[in-house]
């Protein structure tokens, strides 16, 4: 089979749980892992007479997500009822948006420069959970998730390879986590992926029949499932067989894509505007105010940092963590050149944070900038600066005061330096002899010994000059 003759066409639909405390249409908590049906009330149990009231925070987060994805947010959107029966759908309909979604357009730029379009972003509520394997002969229904706020991000069929699908999903998740819209945890189901796949001969412009794959619960599963399904489509096309439009499931343990057992009837969701919910109308200025809360996307930041002299790996490392990048920007804003700031933040600061200092490692950016300035002015050595920084985590004092108190200010006084040099040479006669005999590579070792003796206070440059002078002086 000549798979290269075919081109993969993929569009992804991603459901993202918004980070709210309470559900979309009632004030039940959204917490994960509680006993079954603990977090349910008249509204999310669909008791007779209960009515939905939309969560303001869910709107805020959905709008921010849409803006972070460059989508156009509509001032007026409409919730509709999507009607179908399922035991974990308490009302017999899902509240979603259909004809008038919250946002349309937008896209995600991938590192290679390709941009994957977004068709629409709409708000909806989650269903509950049906557990089929807990009790013999019975399905157990837990409605704790029912009514949790989601956005569905419908991607355009712009993706051309499984690798690109993975890149899109990673970039999408990074943007959403960055915008503080969602935890995007695939394990907890707060980031769920369905894929529409088809294959066509290269050069063809029309799209062929697609299938939908559900249950893609990790990025690698998504990539794997797309490859398997694409291969199946290619084989069918080559053999002149018909690809049936249907829903497939990825069975990760078996590494296979299988048709979902077909339902007894085709879907007819009978969407219509939900009469319990008037249109969602965003007040004038709402979207602009929300735009101000959208952080610069990580890709754009990386490009900016690289243009400021930060290496590309450092730029990626910085943007991998929202807290780190925020601190980095503050340090740069306090006057530290970007490469130096990156060096400090990714080095000492991250190490201290990971070693247990936590967010206390993010000492005031101004103080860190002062410390960096002292290094540049040769007031302290870089090794002394590291020790001073470690002290600063638990000490609110100015770095210069700490350095003075702890005796870490650099010593440039020739007499003192000479004394240290003499002592080191005397204490290490073998090395001294070899060095003075012309073995220049021992310079570093000796400088290090002098630094150690001076508890980091000696100016290493001057120490080097003094040592070299001894050789030249012979």
């Amino acid at each position: 089979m000549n798979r290269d003759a075919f081109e993969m066409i993929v569009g992804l639909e991603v459901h993202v749980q918004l980070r709210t405390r309470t559900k979309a249409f009632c004030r039940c908590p959204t917490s994960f892992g509680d006993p079954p049906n603990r977090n349910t009330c008249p509204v999310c149990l669909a008791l007779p007479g209960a009515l939905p009231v939309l969560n303001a925070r869910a709107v805020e987060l959905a709008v921010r997500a849409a803006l972070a994805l460059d989508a156009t947010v509509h001032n007026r959107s409409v919730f509709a009822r999507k009607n179908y029966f399922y035991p974990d759908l308490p009302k017999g309909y899902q509240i979603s948006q259909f004809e008038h979604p919250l946002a349309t357009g937008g896209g995600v730029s991938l590192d290679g420069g390709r941009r994957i379009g977004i068709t629409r972003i709409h708000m909806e509520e989650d269903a509950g959970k049906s557990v089929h394997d807990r009790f013999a002969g019975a399905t157990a229904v837990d409605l704790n998730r029912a009514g949790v706020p989601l956005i569905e991000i419908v991607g355009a069929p712009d993706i051309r390879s499984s690798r690109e699908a993975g890149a899109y999903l990673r970039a999408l998740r990074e943007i959403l986590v960055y915008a503080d819209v969602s935890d995007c945890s695939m394990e907890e189901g707060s980031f769920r992926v369905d894929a529409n796949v088809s294959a066509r001969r290269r050069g063809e412009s029309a799209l062929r029949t697609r299938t939908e794959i559900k249950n893609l619960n990790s990025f690698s599963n998504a990539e794997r499932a797309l490859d398997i399904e694409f291969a199946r489509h290619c084989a069918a096309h080559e053999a002149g067989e018909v690809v049936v439009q249907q829903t497939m499931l990825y069975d990760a343990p078996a590494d296979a894509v299988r048709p979902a057992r077909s339902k007894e009837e085709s879907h007819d969701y009978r969407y219509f505007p939900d009469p319990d919910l008037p249109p969602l109308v965003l007040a004038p200025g709402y979207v602009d105010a929300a735009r101000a809360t959208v952080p610069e996307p990580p890709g754009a930041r990386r490009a900016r940092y690289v243009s400021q002299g930060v290496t590309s790996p450092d730029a990626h490392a910085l943007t991998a963590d929202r807290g780190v990048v925020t601190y980095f920007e503050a340090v740069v804003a306090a006057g530290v050149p970007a490469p130096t700031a990156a060096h400090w933040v990714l080095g000492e600061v991250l190490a201290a944070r990971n070693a247990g200092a936590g967010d206390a490692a993010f000492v005031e950016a101004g103080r860190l900038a002062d410390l960096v300035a002292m290094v540049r002015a040769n007031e302290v050595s870089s090794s002394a600066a590291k020790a001073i920084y470690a002290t600063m985590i638990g000490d609110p004092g100015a770095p210069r005061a700490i350095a003075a108190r702890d005796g870490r200010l650099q010593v440039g006084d020739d007499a003192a330096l000479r004394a240290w040099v003499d002592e080191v040479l005397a204490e290490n006669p073998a090395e001294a002899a070899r060095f003075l005999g012309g073995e220049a590579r021992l310079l570093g070792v000796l400088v290090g010994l002098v630094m150690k003796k001076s508890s980091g206070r000696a100016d290493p440059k001057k120490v080097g000059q003094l040592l070299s002078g001894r050789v030249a002086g012979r």
Partner: protein
Amino acid sequence: MTDAVAGSAALIAASVRAGNVSARELASAALDAADRHQRRLNAFVSMDREATLAAADAAPRGGVLAGVPVAIKDNIATPFLTTSCGSRVLEGYVSPFEATAARKLREAGAVLIGKTTMDEFAMGSSTEHSAFGPARNPHDPDRVPGGSSGGSAVAVAAGVCPIALGSETGGSVRQPAAFCGVVGVKPTYGRVSRFGLVAFASSLDNVGVFGRTVDDAALALEVISGPDAAHDATSATGDVPRFRASAFDEPSPRGGAHVGDLSGVVIGRPREYFPGSLDAAMRDRCDRALDALRAAGAEVRDVSLPHTDLAIPAYYIVAPAECSANLARFDGVRYGARVTGDGLRAMYEATRSNGFGEEVTRRILLGTYVLSAGYYDAYYRKAMQARALIRADFESVFASGVHALFTPTTPTTAFPFGSMADPYDMYLSDIFTVTANLAGVPALSLPIGRVHGLPVGGQVIAPRFAEAGMLRVASALERALGADAHR
């Protein structure tokens, strides 16, 4: 004691506040009266003497409805007694939460004495579609009391309690009020929270009130009105004026003289509501009422609401469509009567076919059909378009200087049981009432006379949120008609 509950709600509450009678005594008297009428009229589907007397003892004694016995339609969630909606699918169901309207009544001191007979899920105009047997018209027990809130109308008409709650989707308060000879008010859509009212058609549903007099109805409506944004996104946010005070104490718009003076008030008489086919005796009672309005100082003006003929078709698309989704929750999974079958699908189908009666089934199927693929545009979208035109009709007539409209409430008086064999004939009994639901405007029915001993209702329709003015017109008409209202 029976005399005590036969008085007006305002007087009863005043005597309770003065300590002349206790809430418990009144509740007991109302329960006695209910029991006495129950076999003949079947107004109630559930009563519980012990629970009611306990509620009476707990009722706040200083409220505006202190100790007033009330009946509540069985589709409004109450903390005790059933909320079974006249349906087998909810037989015996007791709600674990309370409707806002029921809570407000209780907090004002009113005491719930029983839940009332209704057409299943409020779908019907006669209570013949109740799964628990129909209520009967106190003026002629061989005739229907009207519906769907028939039991509440009967409870008030029979003197069991001075006020009662009902609900309206297409006239389910006004039509039984007209048939039973009492006052029935449908407020502006959103004026009363729908939280706890079991939904039939959400965009049309309203909680409404019955009273023996306009004054009592105004008092009850005032108590249950108000914003409830935390529980109902369609509840109106505006403040509630004093319906009762404005109806009885305030001067007329011209700064006019006395209570009941309608000088300066323009009453529209929409010609579409007085068709040539209207029964002559009904027309005669309406003409008498219009004369009474003129005598009270009002100007009566002929007006037109040109899209009225679209109302019944639009209503019978929109209401079933919404009902088909609203009633999907009755699936036997979380509450209600479950009928098992072979597997989940069979459980759904058995639960729902056993749980729902013929009319509800018909409307769910109709609603499912009009929303299904290929039919949505032809039916639902067109119906919404027609609905907007009907709303615009009202807006333009009210913008032309008309303060309120006067029409007959129903085309006929109460009809005999079993006389409406064709479902569509039954639907036509809503012909003068559905328009107010479609437009969201307030409307009420009050007694304007009798024909062959059966009550005739006259309808007053007002602009959105103009309940105070509507009640003032109704009160003036009630006063001007005097004893003619019941002959």
